[in-house]
């Protein structure tokens, strides 16, 4: 039997506001436990929430970026349950009326096809605190620094049909929130995390299968692995006569498996109701237009512009616009070396990305500024060095931070473009290799490469390849 996978994602993105969604506490990561928890965060008797307008602005920004409907009025509700990291005994979230509703995100799959993934809604809510167990034998600690950090929960339609599609969607959302500067996207610190709803159904079936919700997915790799595991588990279960139960499962990255988090009998009834401490959130037309005016160029727009303005392929444009920083870097290089946009693209995606990856660096780390790379490309463009030599120069620049011209100068890597000098080198090689010359002239064309190699060797690779080819052909022909 053929099975189809159906996936929907709930992405939690922490908004990068300076203070919390309902209190004035700071939201910076890494402070000592409870150093950033005030009376509101601690849920003290008598305290009240006051909405942070910046969080609303960021949520609206996201909504506009995905072409969603922005609710003129939305409502904060209380989600009631007991847990020590939830000080008030309820989480303030949006339930029936979220601020962002009904948008879509387009992803490009590996084969180049495009797919539209629906976004059901995105709502504002507060994060919970954390329970700490390490180094606290016999007790559990509670750190409420994170309690009250603003989140948007982005809920997709069940539109994805494979782990690959899910990853492509998640990466696109990740790119988007960073473009919008509403979330730092740091997955290790939990700023960007995801729950996946996974089900399987017979190929061609209309009804969805029963889904399991997988929690705690804080890396792209885990999402992929968890989905693969879960799909295999469900198929195996059904094929052996079992039934998938609707439940919440936790992904264990150490064992690479998902397992049930709580049984149905223990499932919470959250008793949602509108929070009487907060008035309905009113968003005016002028507020929305103000936010719209601040929207940056979005990834898709930028990719389209790169393709037309710089003559890049759709794929290259997509890679280069995956982050705003990389796109900015590329664009600075491309503008500094007019007419060489494709060369710039190859170098940014090739040598530069490889070098960054190797050292696990980000383009913003400033190890090789855009202008420095442009300096190198300029020398390729004006034929001072060949592409091959350029790689050597790049390595030296990467290691020492020296400008391209200095490296070329110091190492004497300037390309030989003087025809007389190249001619002399060719003559010497021909003189040294009479046997090969005779064979070549006897019809063994393949030996041409041998002569190129010998001349390059003699000139330490500096001979201009095009000139060398032309001259060599002439001279070999006699």
């Amino acid at each position, binding site marked *: 039997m053929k099975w189809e996978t159906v996936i929907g994602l709930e992405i939690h993105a922490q908004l990068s506001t300076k203070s919390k969604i309902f209190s004035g506490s700071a939201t910076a990561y890494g402070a000592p436990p409870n150093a950033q928890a005030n009376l509101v965060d601690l849920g*003290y008797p*008598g*305290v*009240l929430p006051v909405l942070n307008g910046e969080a609303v602005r960021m949520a609206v920004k996201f909504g506009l970026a995905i072409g969603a409907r922005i609710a003129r009025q939305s409502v904060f509700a209380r989600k*009631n349950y007991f847990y020590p990291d939830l000080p008030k*005994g*309820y989480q303030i979230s949006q339930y029936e009326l979220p601020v962002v509703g009904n948008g879509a995100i387009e992803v490009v799959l590996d084969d180049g096809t495009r797919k539209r993934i629906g976004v059901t809604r995105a709502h504002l809510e507060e994060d919970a605190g954390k329970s700490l167990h390490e180094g606290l034998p016999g007790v559990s600690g509670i750190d409420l620094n994170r309690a009250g950090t603003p989140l948007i929960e982005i809920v997709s339609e069940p539109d994805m049909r494979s782990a690959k599609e899910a990853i492509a969607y998640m990466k696109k959302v990740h790119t988007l929130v960073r473009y919008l500067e509403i979330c730092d996207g740091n997955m290790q610190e939990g700023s960007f995390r995801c729950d996946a709803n996974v089900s399987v159904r017979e190929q061609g079936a209309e009804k969805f299968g029963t889904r399991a919700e997988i929690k705690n997915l804080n890396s792209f790799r885990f999402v992929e692995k968890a989905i693969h595991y879960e799909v295999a588990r469900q198929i195996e279960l059904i094929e052996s006569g079992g039934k998938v139960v609707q439940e919440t499962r936790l992904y264990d990255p150490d064992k690479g498996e998902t397992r049930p988090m709580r049984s149905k009998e223990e499932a919470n009834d959250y008793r949602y109701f509108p929070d009487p401490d907060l008035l309905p959130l009113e968003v005016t037309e002028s507020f929305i237009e103000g936010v719209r005016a601040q929207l940056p160029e979005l990834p898709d727009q930028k990719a389209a512009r790169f393709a037309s303005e710089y003559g890049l392929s759709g794929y290259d444009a997509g890679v280069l616009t995956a982050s705003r920083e990389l796109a900015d870097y590329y664009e600075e290089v491309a503008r500094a070396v007019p007419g060489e946009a494709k060369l710039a693209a190859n170098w940014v995606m090739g040598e530069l990305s490889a070098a960054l990856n190797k050292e696990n660096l980000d383009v913003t780390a400033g190890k090789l500024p855009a202008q420095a790379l442009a300096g190198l490309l300029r020398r390729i463009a004006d034929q001072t060095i060949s592409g091959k030599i350029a790689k050597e120069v790049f390595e030296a620049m990467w290691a020492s931070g020296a400008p391209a011209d200095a490296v070329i100068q110091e190492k004497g890597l300037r390309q030989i473009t003087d025809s007389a000098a190249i001619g002399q080198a060719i003559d010497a090689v021909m003189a040294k290799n009479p046997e090969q010359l005779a064979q070549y002239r006897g019809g063994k064309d393949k030996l041409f490469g041998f002569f190129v190699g010998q001349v390059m060797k003699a000139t330490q690779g500096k001979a201009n390849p095009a000139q060398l080819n032309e001259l060599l052909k002439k001279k070999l022909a006699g």
Partner: protein
Amino acid sequence: MTIHTQSVSQLSEGLRRKAFSSLELTKLFLERIEASQSVLNALITITREQALESARAADRKRAAGDAAPLTGVPIVHKDIFCTEAVRTTCGSRMLENFVSPYDATVVARLKAAGTVMLGKANMDEFAMGSSNETSWFGAVRNPWNTDLVPGGSSGGSAVTVAARLAPAATATDTGGSIRQPAALCGVTGVKPTYGRVSRYGMIAFASSLDQGGIIAATAQDAALLLQAMAGFDPNDSTSVDLPVPDYASGLDAPLAGLKIGLLKEFFDKGLDPQNERRIREALAVYEKLGATLREVSLPNLPLSVAAYYVVAPAECSSNLARFDGVRFGYRCENPKDLTDLYKRSRGEGFGAEVKRRIMTGTYVLSAGYYDAYYLKAQKVRQLIAADFVRAFNEVDVLIGPTTPTPAFPIGAKTSDPITMYLNDIYTIGANLAGLPAMSIPCGFVEGLPVGLQIVAPQFGEQRMLNVAHLFQRETDWHTKIPEAYK
């Protein structure tokens, strides 16, 4: 002239004329509190040392020529308002030893206005009750007859003023908790419009209904104190950013032409005939002052008790979830695990009435019941609010009884919560609609005070206080003090 029977306005004048100092006043009222405690049990905490200290500071301020009208006037705060460095119990074992790290906005504003806090008034546990019998710190007794309840939940505040243990006390009203005890104790109690007074630092019972207010001897005093309490607070999103009118300046406006609405539903068969007689007599006073009476009907009002006992418990079930034994408040001994900690801390820390309401509230919010109970109650609430709006198109204020009967004996209704809940039948409507309402004394039935309720349109406090004040200019019911406390 005795000092303790004077109104806030008179005491303020006396302080200004240096007839007495704040320290003298403070000592006098502290002694009255301490002497009455074993009988009335009106306060949970007496802050003698802090009170004397702030009285001295007030006197220094006055000597320096830097005094405001309320500088040095002693008051009592209901123990639902958080007070920095002083324990705030909310009448519950759960908070028996809870010392708030901050002042409620009401407390901070009255402090800034110069008042001196004498202590914290007893109350029904978490403001849930109509008789002040649910307090973990014991029942409060009615000074007019100590076998009777003072009403609740602000029983301690009402008794404080009735027995002149202080000239005024803050209070809160969720379904009648200011007006009902004010009526049963023969004092003036004002519940402002929802949003007029900040709820920040006022421990929440039912957030959409709770409103802080004041109990005093006269409408004039209430106006003076409300002036200091009211106004927008950035810490309370539901407080309203509207200017606060000068309440005192409108007090004497003539009532000629005032249209008074008599709610048909308030003069029903549940109203004690003797109580009704006092109300009718009061209405005659208003006619004499030039007001006209007209019967109006709020057809949905009879549903108010039912709607209230869905909405209020629902909100309370969520508001009281924070009392879990983890960060503050009562924690059970030796919890064996997290669930045990929750169950026993809450089981032992909360009293029966609080638990009853938490359970009711949890039930009405549960999946499958939400639409039938909570959502329907909210719809009824809107209908009632709309009824009031229609009524106020025809009349300026609504006047009627505050309670169906005068004070009842301690223990008489504790075994039957429904009978107890019906005590708030006339007061709940104003909470559901967010309207300002007050109770003033209008006579006695068999030696027990009867309260007259005045309800005004939203933010109509000025007119409401004016209507109450002119009645008090014509009558002397508000000056009556129980024999033992004269």
